[in-house]
């Protein structure tokens, strides 16, 4: 595997730094920069296409100078640097695409030709070996241990462990079974044990793997709405500068200034926004690439862009906000029972309990009381059953039980009226706070009440505070009752919650938010999430989820980590900021270029305008050449920034704008004055002009 596959493949460790580019990627990028000189390829980038046209004219002018015997040296340099401007812009795009291409090649290598076991007669189970690429949606195949899943589909029968490393990079196999939310399998993954029957859901050439390849390769890359708008703006600016420069022919003639068309061409190229024009698509591709590095696959750049705009984030409580398992947080002794004994009873009752709840009781005892216990040599474990709603442990020295409060009451023969008032109060308190009370009995006597609670993940509250500063509202979605939901919501610091949520409720909530003009992001995995995922502006489906969910969302999280939404939003914002910063920088640069070129082109005929040469550039030729060289080099200089992206800081829109305006606006005005001056010093020192 090349290192680019490593990006894609291995969880978390994937992010091999974006600055270490292998020489093969570099070589390919350089080659592609020349391939992209084809005007048909440049047509989607009006600014750079214009630059190429002027470069061609400059070349013609150089050739003409050779033919007529005039000194072609200076014209040649201008022409060469104009070509470099185009090449640098192409290179920026190629290098951004490069990593994706390498990743795609690696993926393609994995897509070996599989012979699928096509079931043509489900009644009798007749099987015909068929090449995977001939499978159409609706066909049913058998996949047995050791087989590669030939295409995407849903399991209709069976259960199997599947190695999905090819897609997710996670080598531990996962369980896939028919029915429920874990029924989807992906082409290219391998069944490790057992067998499954799969109904194929993808048409040939449109499988998840195919789309993944297309996405990382950028073949399906379309301009996003904002990119489109920005391209329009840049094209408009190009036209404005065409007018401003073109009309100098007439105005100059009136003023007795002889204007060399080559000089006007150079001025024109310096003024049009070549910097952002050259880097625009690289920024977009790099954004997708950054997502890929956190193992998120977006089906369109549009979705990434929308992520930056998200106002409301819908989060499933379970797994995102809380651990998803209830955990013991306190053990309250019954009246007359010493705390130590109550705790010990809870521990004994849970010793044989392998569930997370049981583990959490042992954990609590160890952490808070330093209590540990070993299973005795002889014991009988009483497993939990839905009818008794009680579990426990029998040993030679005693019996311990824990379970639903009512069930334990019954077990120890207490009428609800006989329950001590303190116990009643504790049970009530726990229930009201949204927790689950469990009762614990030792040898038929009620000894303790255990408080089980949904525990909020550490750090979640801080992340939500960050989100609020970014301008996002978080809404927690849960199947819990409103009381439990409210407790968790206030603990986690979400802005709102939706309790006892059905899929219809989710969909309605999204629609309501959108009606108010907000953009909504959500993540989900179940089939019943599909409508909501489709309705949301940014729908992140979990890779472990159902085929329906994965189809409905516009992003797939290969790690199936719902908190990933936050990273997605950041990547979206980063992409937009980078675009804005470089556009501002590009336009602000023009001020200095005017002060370099305008005096240079007029000073011979109108010496008074020499006063505008505030940079004190060597001579008219060196001034123009320096501006052109600076204009080309700045593209290359900014490639790392375009690929890395301008950092997003959750400091509020106003502060962020102020900061970026200072750096890229004011900085954009000042930087070229210094840059052009330096280039001019070199150009004159070396004697280039």
């Amino acid at each position, binding site marked *: 595997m090349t290192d680019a596959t490593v990006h894609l493949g291995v969880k978390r460790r994937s992010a091999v730094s974006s600055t270490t580019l292998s020489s093969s990627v570099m070589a390919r990028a350089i080659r592609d920069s020349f391939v992209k000189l084809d005007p048909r390829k440049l047509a989607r980038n009006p600014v750079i296409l214009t630059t190429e046209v002027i470069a061609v004219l400059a070349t013609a002018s150089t050739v003409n100078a050779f033919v007529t015997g005039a000194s072609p040296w200076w014209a040649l340099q201008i022409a060469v640097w104009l070509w470099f401007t185009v090449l640098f812009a192409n290179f920026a795009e190629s290098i951004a695409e490069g990593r994706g291409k390498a990743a795609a090649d690696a993926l393609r290598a994995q897509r070996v030709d599989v012979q699928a076991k096509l079931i043509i007669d489900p009644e009798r189970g007749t099987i015909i070996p068929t090449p995977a690429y001939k499978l159409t949606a609706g066909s049913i195949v058998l996949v047995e241990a050791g087989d590669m899943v030939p295409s995407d589909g849903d399991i209709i029968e069976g259960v199997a462990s599947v190695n999905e490393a090819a897609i997710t990079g996670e080598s531990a196999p996962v369980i896939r079974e028919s029915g429920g939310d874990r029924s989807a399998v992906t082409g290219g993954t391998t069944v490790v044990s057992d067998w499954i029957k799969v109904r194929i859901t993808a048409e040939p050439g449109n499988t998840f793997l195919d789309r993944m390849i297309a996405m990382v390769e950028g073949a399906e890359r379309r301009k996003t*709405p*904002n990119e*489109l*708008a*920005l391209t*329009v*703006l840049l094209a*408009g600016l190009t*036209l*404005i*500068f065409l*007018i*401003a420069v073109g*009309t*100098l022919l*007439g*105005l100059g*003639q*009136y*003023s007795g200034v002889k204007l060399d068309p080559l000089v006007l061409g150079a001025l024109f190229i310096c*003024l049009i926004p070549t910097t952002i024009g050259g880097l625009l698509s690289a920024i977009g591709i790099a954004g997708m690439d950054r997502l890929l590095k956190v193992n998120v696959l977006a089906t369109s750049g549009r979705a990434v*862009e929308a992520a*930056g*705009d998200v*106002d409301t984030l819908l989060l499933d409580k379970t797994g995102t906000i809380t651990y998803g398992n209830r955990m013991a947080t306190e053990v309250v002794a019954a009246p007359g029972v010493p705390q130590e004994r109550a705790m010990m009873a809870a521990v004994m009752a849970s010793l044989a309990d392998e569930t997370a709840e049981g583990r959490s009781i042992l954990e609590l005892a160890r952490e808070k009381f330093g209590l540990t216990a070993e299973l005795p040599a002889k014991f009988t474990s009483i497993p939990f059953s839905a009818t008794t709603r009680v579990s426990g442990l029998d040993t030679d020295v005693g019996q311990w039980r824990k379970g639903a409060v009512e069930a334990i009451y019954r077990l120890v023969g207490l009428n609800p009226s006989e329950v001590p008032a303190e116990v009643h109060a504790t049970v009530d308190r726990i229930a009201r706070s949204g927790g689950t009370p469990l009762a614990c009995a030792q040898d038929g006597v009620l000894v303790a009440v255990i408080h089980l609670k949904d525990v909020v993940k550490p750090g979640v509250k801080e992340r939500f505070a960050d989100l*609020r500063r*970014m*301008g*996002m509202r978080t809404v927690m979605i849960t199947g819990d009752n409103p009381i439990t939901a409210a407790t968790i919501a206030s603990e986690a610091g979400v802005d709102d919650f939706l309790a006892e949520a059905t899929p219809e409720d989710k969909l309605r909530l999204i629609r309501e938010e959108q*009606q*108010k*003009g*907000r953009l909504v992001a959500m993540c989900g995995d179940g089939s019943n999430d599909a409508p909501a995922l489709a309705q949301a502006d940014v729908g992140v489906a979990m890779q472990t989820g159902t085929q329906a969910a994965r189809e409905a969302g516009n992003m797939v999280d290969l790690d199936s980590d719902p908190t990933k939404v936050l990273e997605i939003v950041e990547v979206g914002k980063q992409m*937009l*900021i980078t675009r*804005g910063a470089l*556009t*501002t920088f590009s*336009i602000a640069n*023009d*001020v200095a270029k*005017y002060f370099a070129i*305008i005096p240079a082109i*007029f000073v011979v005929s*109108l010496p*008074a*305008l020499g*006063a*505008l040469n505030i940079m004190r550039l060597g001579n008219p030729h060196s001034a123009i050449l320096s501006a052109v060289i600076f204009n080309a080099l700045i593209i290359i200089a900014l490639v790392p920034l375009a690929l890395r992206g*301008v950092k997003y800081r959750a400091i*509020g*829109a*106003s502060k*962020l*704008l*102020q900061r*970026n*305006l200072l750096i*890229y*606006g004011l900085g954009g005005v000042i930087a070229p004055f210094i840059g052009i001056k330096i280039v001019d010093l070199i150009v004159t020192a070396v004697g280039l002009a």
Partner: protein
Amino acid sequence: MDLPGWSEILFTIGLTVAIAFPLGFYLARVWKGESTWLDPVLRPVEGVLYKAFGVEREKSQNWFAYTISMLAFSIASFVVLYLILRFQDLLPLNPQGFKGLTPDLSFNTAISFVTNTNWQSYTPEQTVSTFSQMAGLTSHNFLSAAAGIAMAAAVARAFAANRGEGLGNFWVDLTRISLYVLLPVAIVVALVFVALGEPQTLSASAAAVGLEGGKQTIALYPTASQEAIKQFGTNGGGIFNANSAHPFENPNAITNLIEIVLMNTLSLACVVAFGRLVVARKEARALLVTMVILVTAGAAAIYWTETQPAPAMHAVHASTAVNMEGKEVRFGAPSTAVWAATTTGASDGGVNGMHDSFMPLGGAVTMFLIQLGEILPGGVGSGLYGMVVMALIAVFVAGLMVGRTPEYLGKKIEAREVKFAMLAVLILPLSILGFAAVAAVLPVALKSLANSGPHGLSEILYAYSSATGNNGSAFAGLSANTPFWNSTLGIAMLLGRFAYVVPVLAMAGSIAAKPKLEPSTGTLPTHGPLFISLLIGVILIMGGLQFFPAQALGPIVEHFQVLAAVAGH
């Protein structure tokens, strides 16, 4: 420069802003169709007008219908005005016995008044009959201003809408703005002007005998009434060639103050009304502050250049006084500076001094204020929508830097809006620089120039800037009443008005249809000092980048040549 001078400039602009607020509140009520205290008198008139013209008052038009109505009205106005001017000799109230205007002059003048430009290629008191003046020109001072304000209302409604379509009804807007805003103010101000000494008569002239015994014929007109609407509607077309430097148009310091205040206050009021209608008062205030800062800076710059002694004179110790050439001695430099800045910033075009005679940099500032797009505060209505377009561009470019796709006043700015905004903005350099570059090399055009060299180029640039910006002031020194200038300036005026506003209305249609988004803490704030600085930066850089090369060959090189010549002595 002295304290009284600065105080005068600041007082004048401050007074303008102070009046703009109540006027804006009132204008918002008129836009919304709410009741006003003029209702008892004007409601019945309004009703009769709607009935007579078959206007369905409640029917809101989409952007296309609104635009078509506006264009139809303008075309009809143009045709009628053209015929009045062309055949004024056949029409009544021609006590002076003037002939009909030539075809090219009629074309130019009709467009000029329909587009709220009031460029005058002719000497009015020697060309235009009283009937042409009153029925033709003055009436369009009302209607073209009302049309401009109507379009601003349409743009405001677009931002207020939530997935809406209607931008209001052009005919209702036109009627209500004329009836409730322009007419009452014009009547009151005209009476004030009469009281302050401006003539208001239908007689052609007064005979007078000068001190030396020579007989004079002094032209008279219903001046006060024209003067009121000339300024209030940012028209600027004078009755007399000297415009507001003429003692009948501007008899004293008080009329001078009133006229300056009048030519800016309604444009600013449109911004205030916009804030009310869109429920974005802070954002509208930011636009208003931007306008005021820039126009004040313009006035300050002119005050500075025009209070310098002319370098050449200074060098030979001939005079150390300020450069008074082209300035009305009654008003002095500060009054001229603030007038020059506001008349060019406001797309008014009336003058009380001759910009041609300013120092080169003073002339450059007046020209630049026009080239920035007539948004400071610009023509009535047109200044507002021009400023909104600039705000959209500023938000689009810089707004991305907060990490969201850009939105302004709760509306997302996408490719369609950017396209229309750029189409509109493109018109300025295309028309100004395009025509100037052609005129600069055509002998037929150059014949009209009084000066050669950079100053002549400034005259050309100024003329097309003024026409395209629908300003109407002249740099003087250019004899524009020739077929070439009349027709090209006419086309420039057309482009500056309609090729600009049609994309803006199309943009409004697209904006109206969008959902109105709620702001969050992540939204780019579009009020406050940061946004104002951003907007000022974008306006200056965009304007500067477009016009710096041309200005360099005109006033800027002239400035350095003057300095160099002096240094060479």
